[in-house]
């Protein structure tokens, strides 16, 4: 089985800064104040002033979509950062250590891999208030388990390679081995994994907003907008379709940007990534492998 990753993993990586700049720009400037109610301008169709029209309170739909997008991206960025830091640290530490310490770290990662992070997020955001920061921290702090297990599998396999053993025999320290020989072969797989999962994070945030737990109902989150506008689905379907389309588009773009061309097909066709993950998981006795593929967020 080939463990070689296609070069396409990083081909569209330039999209990441583009998305970040777009999100920052959307947060900084909107054509209209997103919460400004104008009852004289209810349910307007698209025009030059209101490019996507207005909602049932006369608020500009495009402005609300922009703010919602920025908030969603904040969550995604927070989660990506937390998963990368926690997952890499725990995974690498477990791979370097032996015996009880390694077992304890792995048990901890397994615990966070099976912890239902959406459920945790539902409970925590409704208790401590809903917002991109709360949601991002909860999803990030409870969902890093699979990432750590993946990192552990990759690092363990890397450390077992003959050339790493040779470098160790030459007197290289563990830290140097990690930096020079292990890290370079693992980061692309980690990145692909993020690419396949970050879209789910955006959807989980939208689901939380849709449920509206502890949220200020008028907030311009995509999920909250879909909840609010579902009442007008029959007369003004565009109100409902736009936030949904924006969310789906974001998921696909994230997937393309970070997973590469292959990303769009990874779990389905057992591309190199999927087999790498599953192979490692098999080797490391991680029985809930497909949990890595999906972490089982049933129907959000």
């Amino acid at each position, binding site marked *: 089985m080939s463990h070689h990753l296609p070069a396409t993993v990083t081909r569209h990586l330039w999209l990441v800064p583009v998305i970040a700049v777009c999100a920052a720009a959307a947060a900084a400037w909107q054509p209209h104040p997103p919460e400004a109610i104008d009852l004289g301008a209810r349910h307007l169709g698209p025009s030059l002033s209101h490019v996507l029209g207005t909602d049932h309170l006369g608020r500009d739909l495009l402005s609300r979509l922009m703010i919602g997008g920025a908030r969603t991206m904040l969550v995604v960025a927070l989660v990506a950062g937390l998963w990368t830091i926690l997952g890499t640290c725990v995974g690498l530490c477990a791979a370097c250590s032996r015996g009880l310490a390694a077992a304890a770290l792995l048990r901890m990662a397994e615990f966070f891999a*099976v912890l239902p992070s959406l459920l945790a997020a539902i409970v925590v955001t409704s208790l*401590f208030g809903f917002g991109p920061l709360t949601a991002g921290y909860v999803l990030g702090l409870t969902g890093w388990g699979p990432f750590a297990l993946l990192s552990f599998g990759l690092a363990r396999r890397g450390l077992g390679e003959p050339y790493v053993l040779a470098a160790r025999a030459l007197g290289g320290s563990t830290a140097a081995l990690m930096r020079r020989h292990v890290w370079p072969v693992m980061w692309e797989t980690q990145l692909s994994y993020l690419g396949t999962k970050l879209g789910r994070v955006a959807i989980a945030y939208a689901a939380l907003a849709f*449920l509206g737990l502890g949220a200020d109902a008028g907030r311009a989150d995509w999920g909250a907008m*879909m909840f609010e506008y579902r009442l007008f689905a029959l007369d003004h379907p565009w109100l409902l379709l736009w936030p949904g389309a924006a969310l789906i588009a974001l998921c696909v773009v994230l997937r393309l940007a970070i997973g590469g061309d292959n990303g769009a*097909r990874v779990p389905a066709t057992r591309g190199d990534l*999927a087999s790498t993950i599953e192979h490692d998981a098999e080797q490391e006795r991680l*029985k809930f492998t497909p949990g890595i593929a*999906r972490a089982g967020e049933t129907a959000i």
Partner: protein
Amino acid sequence: MSWAAREAGRAVLLLWLASLAAFAVIRAMPADPAVITLLAFNQPLTDEAVAALHRQWGLDRSLVEQYAMWLVDFVSGDWRRSFRTGEPIFAEFMHRLPVSLTIGLGGLAVAIALAVPLAEAASRRPHGFCDHLLDALTLGAQAVPAFWLASLLIWLFAVEFAWLRPFSGATVERMILPIAIVAITGIGPLAAVYRAGLSEVGRSHYFMVALGKGGDPETTLARHGRRYAAMGLAAALTAEASWVIGGTAVVEIVFGLPGISQFLVESLAMRDYFVVQAYLMVAVAWMICVAMAAQIARHWLDPRERVAAP
């Protein structure tokens, strides 16, 4: 026997840890349920009223005492009464649990029934129609939010075609769309895993040897292929099934179904301590059950497991 005893011991330990965590998280909540209840019922917010409610619910005791008393009651089947409805929580859960399980497990059953034939068809003709359909479903499961899909299906089937009454029909009629949503989001990932298992078998040496010995492909697949692929499917199913409690929250709310997740969401806003604690315990107990069932299934499917761990 020793296996069962060890597993049971682990399950009890896990449940106890979960009860501690549930208690701690919920008591760390920033608002007081007595205040919320008084406000919700338009009662004067006096210190005496708050203190009376605290006394009634046993919240005036020390935290250790409260936890110990709740644990004893919980184990003996008295899950207390809800602050919000005044009804016994145990009865409410027994009433609602079947709804959640029907949606979640029914959806998964439909998903498997469709995923297995789809994956077999896809692996018979790589890059054929079924293979692309499988890809699309997998990507769809990752990119399309279920609540959005639910709104779309309600609009299509209840309004445009008027085939179903998802809010006012008989129970069976109300269940169709929720089960369909869970199934649609489950088919892609499950089929992908099964498909991956099949193509791995197809490349394996033992499969080629069996073919080389002159076995015809169908028999060889039945004897050597499906069991291996089914192991992957069982693992995928474990992940999906352990999320049945909690994962159906959005669907229950969109369709207004009285499942336990809907009860949780309603109770969270009122800081209904005992409901949230009971819910978390049920969720953990369910995950433990699923993990045990998975272990038994693995033992049965994978002969290597039996050799390695007698």
